[in-house]
């Protein structure tokens, strides 16, 4: 929670500085965010690879655990497609690309901006990227704040699916608390798998 609020604050600080136009840096032309993204992905890889739990997580995995990320993916994509009925401006695939961020706001928004630039132009691509950013931040907030209710009404797997990628990091402590300790390997496994699917689905729907 604190983490996402800090991220939100920095994002807003960036917005304000951008509006004020006081930083002499042409971000539209530089690939700065792409390089930072590579740095991020390398670190995410390092943390997964060096994780002490890696072996026990792999050992503890049963085939039916695959059903949970599968449910997350199908439920998210299907309902993102429904959302496009309410949003006349964007195509069904645009909405599915936004949905397939699975709460990975930083990665999905940058990927969408990059991938959509060719077909939509920089302006619309940045707009869709912004929607992806906000949308996936909202999703993380909903998972963080809603977990107690989700467990109560929809069972212990619901917050894992709702958290998307963040079931393995930001939302994990609260999932552990409300869904139970036995859900930790499931939540981490889910997060890693969903994490791997984000670049795939986002680029896939951006190309359709």
């Amino acid at each position: 929670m604190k983490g996402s609020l800090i991220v939100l604050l920095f994002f807003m600080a960036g917005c304000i500085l951008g509006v004020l136009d006081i930083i002499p840096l042409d971000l539209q032309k530089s690939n700065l965010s792409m390089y930072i993204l590579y740095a991020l992905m390398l670190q995410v890889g390092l943390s997964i690879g060096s994780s002490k739990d890696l072996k026990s997580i792999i050992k503890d995995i049963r085939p039916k655990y695959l059903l949970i990320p599968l449910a997350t993916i199908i439920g998210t994509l299907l309902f993102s497609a429904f959302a496009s009925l309410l949003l006349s401006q964007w195509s069904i695939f645009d909405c599915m690309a936004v949905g397939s961020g699975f709460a990975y706001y930083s990665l999905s928004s940058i990927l969408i901006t990059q991938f959509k630039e060719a077909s939509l132009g920089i302006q619309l691509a940045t707009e869709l990227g912004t929607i992806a950013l906000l949308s996936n931040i909202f999703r993380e907030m909903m998972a963080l704040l809603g977990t107690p209710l989700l467990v109560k009404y929809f069972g212990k797997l619901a917050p894992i699916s709702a958290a998307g990628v963040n079931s393995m990091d930001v939302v994990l402590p609260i999932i552990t608390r409300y869904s139970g300790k036995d859900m930790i390997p499931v939540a981490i496994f889910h997060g890693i798998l969903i994490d791997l699917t984000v670049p795939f689905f986002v680029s896939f729907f951006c190309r359709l």
Partner: protein
Amino acid sequence: MFTIIGTMFSGIILGYIFRNMDFLRKTEKTISYTIILLLFIMGLSVGSNDRIIENLGSFGWQAAIIAFSATCGSIVAAWLVLTLFFKKGESHEG
């Protein structure tokens, strides 16, 4: 896309090889710093884009609609998986 996944997989391999090194304990922290930096840069490019700033209210609503719908979809799907595949034979207190 492949360079991004490739970067992550190189990270996983390097992380596994050097898993006993101390500096890898700090990835959690550096990841959050990197995310903060990334989002700050994103904020800069959003803020310096007049069209987005003028339409921020409308973007917020569109984002909220997709987020709400997508989250509900995954919750319903997770609930189905729980009732269909996990309930029988397993009794964990919720």
